[in-house]
């Protein structure tokens, strides 16, 4: 692997985004997948980095899932997005950040389409006025939440309590990064590092002491393609995609998978259970899987948040081996305790893959 | 009083009994290897007067006079006749002579002694006999000398042939090992030794012009020398012994084997197993004479000599080198020229087909998809069956679809002769099964044949015209289409011309006609195509045609022949055909047409095409 070759490409794909005053928009499913992520993002940006990230209670999501699953036409999705921009405009912000990759894809696609076909923008402007009497203004800058963390990765590294390093041996953890397809594959120039070797997560890993694993199926889809997963008939196809990725990364024995999209961590995490049950194979050592976390969770871990506050117990794959490796103290008994300490009941261990 | 026994006869007696036993056991073994009903057919053929007479006539013609060789190469014919007939007569006359003047007359002789003497007396009669001056004796010795002279003259030609085959008209001769050379040498020396032996004792035993006057007077200078004579008699007996003992393992085994072969063939038997029964008789009857090397089209390419029929049979006979036998079997073009030229008519093709049947094909074909096929989509709308019956069916076959000129000309001919016809497989057909049979997959071929028969019978036609000789052969031999007359399109056109349904105006174009192997050699259809061409233009003579016509090189009979080798054969055949500057080459087979068209400097057309040209002027 010639690293300079990659650096040359990364150099071509740098984008400048402002470092403050963002209008934050959440994802439609991330709270239900991994609730700790978005909360941690806001906590880090507001409290740890002291940035102004405003979130309006009236904002919805981008409608991307419906758009990509062909249940709503593009104009409807664009109108929803226009309404979001209107909310941003009304709350006096120009920089727009969204937490979900698919939304980022939809927003970029909408802005690019409007750029190419201004008459469409005028039409949507009319639709918005007819539907909810709102005027919108296009955001000056559009970023994804992982861009922000990427931009402040060094500040986070400074405040970090732990490193992505094996506490006992001192070796950097081998980390697999998986970028959501809608991040840069559709508009390479809109992502840090371009489409082939996006740098946004690599940057974080390297800043926090980890080592990037470059396995052949790096760009293979994680399995949460809408048409693969939402259409019942294709579900097997979704599982085989994930299986192909794990088979390809197995020789590298990665310790952690970091992702920046709602679907990827969920499927890379849950499907490990299905693969273990069907084939009896786990990809981590002695019966454990490879933990698949979102970049906010990893940032939280590095900055010393309590793992259970980050919601890591919601993951299918046990997090304990990783925590031990990084030397993070945690209270194993508190894993399944509610906020008020009430015992929520511990789930039983599946046959082939351990939960604790 | 001359002795009635002498040790020098022992070597001959022992070897003679050995050879006789060997041949008898061999014959019995072959007969037992025959399938049951073949055996019954064979035995019956021996008793029936008609077939017995035919057997006798063939034996005399082929074993003694060798009429087939005379036809091809007269000098070689004489050589064979002189030796075969001469030797046969010497034995017969010798027997009579020894019976009439038997030295044992009136002697009390133990039975064993009597039996043995029947063996050696006729051969060494002169040693035991005393000269008799009666006219009968004189005639006998004259005959003996005459036949002896005839044999020696045959041997003389054999020696010449060995040294300079060209003189005798043989371009290439088979290569032999030392064993064969030794046996040949012993054969050559038998009769000169007999001459010397008989001459040396001519003063006592008498003799005729050859042995007495020429031999004794000249060669021995008139004086009788006991020991010298004994030496010759010993040499004569030992030489006979050598020849007899080695005979079964040499190519001269064909002498007895041929007789058996003729009897088997007249009983109408065919090869079924490559190494049993009828095939064994054929294998042992092959004299390795090498006539088939010259004619085999494969020998255009130098290193293919070793694949010709004579070496094929020799390899089978040796039993070793299975790999070579297999390769030879698969390379042979199956054109049949070696059978045509073989003086013994050994059908090496059938042995090769039987050998191919032996190949173990792990994957069996599956033609279940043919069940669905109800009928060929014929060009005419389906009218009721009765109208069908007057119809002539035209079955083009697979390959004719690659030469549309043929099928189009045929439809035109049918129309111009306003025949009530139907182009059966205008829209593609099932293969006739012959190519499949050539690979040795007989049952698969039978499946195809069965389906085709069913479809053709369904059409209820009376006459079936085929434009491909390969199909014609399998339709004629394997299909049971009783009631349907099967014709090759050359025959059919010829018929049309004869009952002048086609009036063709002749042109002065010069045509060279190439006899397709499966049409000419297989069925003797030589004249109909030539007659048709005579009605159209001038027929020029090729270098070798009719039963000796060279294969076009494209034959699907050969499984493993490469493109380059096939080109050599095709080029050579074209050279033969264009010997007398024809304007066009005419073929009667789609495969030959396509093979020639590729390399021929002049136009190549099917016979149907030139007929249409003749019709439309």
């Amino acid at each position, binding site marked *: 692997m010639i690293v300079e070759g990659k650096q040359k490409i990364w150099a071509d794909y740098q984008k400048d985004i402002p470092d403050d005053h963002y209008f934050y928009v959440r994802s439609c499913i991330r709270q239900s997948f991994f609730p700790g992520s978005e909360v941690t993002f806001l906590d880090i940006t507001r409290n740890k980095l002291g940035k102004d990230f405003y979130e309006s209670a009236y904002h919805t999501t981008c409608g991307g899932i419906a758009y990509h699953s062909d249940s709503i036409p593009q104009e409807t999705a664009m109108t929803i997005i226009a309404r979001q921009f209107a909310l941003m405009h009304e709350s006096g912000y120009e920089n727009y950040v969204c937490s979900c990759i698919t939304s980022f894809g939809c927003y970029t696609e909408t802005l690019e389409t409007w750029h190419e076909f201004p008459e469409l923008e005028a039409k949507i402007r009319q639709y918005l006025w007819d539907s909810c009497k709102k005027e919108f203004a296009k955001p000056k800058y559009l970023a994804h939440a992982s861009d922000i963390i990427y931009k402040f990765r060094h500040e986070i590294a400074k405040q970090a309590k732990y490193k992505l390093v094996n506490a006992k041996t001192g070796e950097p953890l081998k980390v697999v990064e998986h970028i959501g397809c809608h991040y840069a594959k559709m508009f390479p120039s809109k992502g840090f590092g371009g489409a082939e070797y996006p740098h946004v997560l690599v940057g974080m890993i390297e800043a926090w002491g980890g080592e990037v694993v470059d396995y052949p199926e790096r760009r293979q889809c994680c399995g949460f393609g809408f048409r693969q997963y939402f259409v019942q008939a294709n579900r097997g196809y979704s599982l085989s995609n994930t299986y192909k990725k794990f088979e390809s990364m197995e020789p590298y024995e990665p310790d952690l998978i970091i992702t920046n999209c709602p679907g990827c961590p969920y499927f890379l995490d849950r499907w490990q259970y299905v693969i273990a049950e069907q084939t009896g194979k786990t990809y981590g050592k002695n019966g454990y899987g490879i933990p698949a976390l979102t970049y906010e969770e990893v940032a939280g871990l590095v900055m010393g948040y309590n793992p259970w506050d980050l919601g890591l117990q919601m993951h299918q794959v046990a997090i304990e081996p990783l925590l031990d490796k990084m030397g993070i103290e945690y209270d194993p008994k508190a894993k399944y305790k509610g906020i008020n300490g009430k015992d929520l009941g511990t789930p039983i261990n599946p046959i082939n893959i351990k939960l604790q | 009083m001359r002795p009635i026994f002498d040790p020098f006869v022992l070597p001959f007696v022992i070897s003679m009994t050995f050879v006789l036993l060997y041949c008898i056991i061999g014959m019995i073994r072959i007969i037992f290897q025959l399938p049951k009903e073949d055996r019954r057919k064979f035995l019956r053929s021996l008793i029936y007067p008609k077939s017995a007479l035919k057997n006798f006539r063939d034996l005399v013609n082929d074993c003694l006079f060798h009429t087939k060789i005379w036809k091809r190469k007269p000098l070689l014919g004489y050589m064979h006749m002189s030796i075969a007939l001469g030797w046969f007569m010497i034995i017969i006359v010798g027997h009579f002579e020894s019976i009439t003047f038997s030295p044992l007359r009136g002697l009390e002789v133990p039975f064993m002694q009597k039996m043995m003497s029947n063996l050696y007396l006729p051969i060494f009669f002169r040693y035991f006999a005393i000269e008799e001056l009666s006219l009968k004796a004189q005639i006998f010795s004259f005959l003996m000398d005459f036949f002896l002279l005839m044999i020696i003259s045959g041997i003389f030609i054999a020696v010449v042939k060995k040294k300079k085959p060209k003189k005798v008209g043989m371009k290439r001769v088979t290569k032999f090992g030392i064993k064969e050379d030794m046996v040949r040498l012993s054969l050559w020396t038998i009769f000169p030794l007999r001459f010397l032996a008989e001459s040396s004792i001519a003063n006592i035993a008498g003799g005729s012009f050859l042995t007495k006057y020429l031999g004794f007077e000249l060669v021995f200078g008139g004086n009788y020398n006991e020991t010298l004579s004994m030496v010759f008699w010993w040499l004569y007996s030992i030489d006979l012994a050598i020849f007899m003992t080695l005979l079964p393992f040499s190519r001269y085994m064909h002498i007895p084997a041929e007789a058996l072969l003729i009897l088997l063939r007249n009983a109408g038997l065919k090869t079924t197993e490559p190494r049993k029964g009828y095939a064994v008789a054929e294998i042992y009857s092959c004299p390795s004479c090498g006539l088939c090397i010259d004619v085999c089209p494969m020998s255009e390419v130098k290193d293919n000599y070793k694949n010709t029929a004579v070496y094929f049979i020799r390899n089978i006979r040796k039993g070793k080198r299975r790999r070579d036998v297999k390769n030879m079997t*698969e390379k042979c073009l199956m054109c049949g020229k070696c059978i045509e030229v073989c003086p013994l008519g050994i059908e090496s093709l059938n042995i090769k087909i039987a050998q191919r049947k032996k*190949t*173990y*094909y*792990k*994957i*069996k*074909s*599956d*033609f279940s*998809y*043919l069940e*669905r*096929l109800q009928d060929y989509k014929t060009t005419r709308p389906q009218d009721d069956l009765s109208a069908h019956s007057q119809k002539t069916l035209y079955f083009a076959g*697979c*390959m004719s*679809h*690659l030469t549309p000129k043929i099928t189009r000309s045929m439809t035109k001919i049918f129309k111009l002769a306003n025949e009530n016809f139907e182009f059966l497989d205008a*829209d*593609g*057909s*099932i*293969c006739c099964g012959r*190519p*499949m049979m*050539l*690979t040795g*997959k007989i049952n*698969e071929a039978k499946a*195809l044949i069965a389906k085709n028969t069913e479809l053709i019978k369904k059409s209820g036609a009376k006459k079936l015209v085929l434009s491909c000789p390969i199909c014609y052969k399998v339709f004629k031999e394997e299909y049971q289409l009783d009631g349907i007359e099967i014709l090759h399109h050359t025959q059919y056109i010829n018929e049309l011309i004869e009952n002048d349904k086609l009036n063709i105006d002749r042109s002065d174009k010069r045509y060279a006609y190439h006899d397709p192997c499966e049409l000419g050699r297989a069925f003797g259809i030589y004249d109909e195509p030539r007659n048709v061409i005579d009605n159209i233009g001038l027929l020029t003579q090729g270098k070798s045609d009719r039963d000796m016509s060279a294969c076009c090189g*494209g034959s*699907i009979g050969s*499984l*493993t*022949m*490469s*493109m380059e080798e096939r080109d050599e054969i095709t080029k050579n055949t074209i050279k033969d055909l264009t010997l007398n500057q024809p304007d066009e080459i005419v073929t009667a087979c789609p*495969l030959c047409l*396509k093979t020639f068209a590729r390399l021929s400097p002049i136009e190549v057309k099917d016979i149907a095409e030139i007929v249409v040209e003749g019709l439309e002027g």
Partner: protein
Amino acid sequence: MDNVDLKLFNKIEALNPDINTCMACGLCTATCTAGNFTDMSFRKIILMLQRGKDKEAIELVKKCMMCGKCMMICSRGINTRNILLSITRIYNEEQNI
């Protein structure tokens, strides 16, 4: 393609080296007599064997009537018929799962 076992194909290649000169022009499949009734395609058979899909190739080989039209028309002069024969000899129905 890595775990494809071409042992049998190499045997066919040894017997008929001209199999490599196939440029997949499709003439043989177009003219195929069996192709008239089924999906038999000699071009596909060669490719399938080269890619290790023996089972599917054998399924097709069973339909061949050995008529030799493909050999007559092949623009590279490949001895198609002998290749088919070698396949029926060398490959096996049950053996390869």
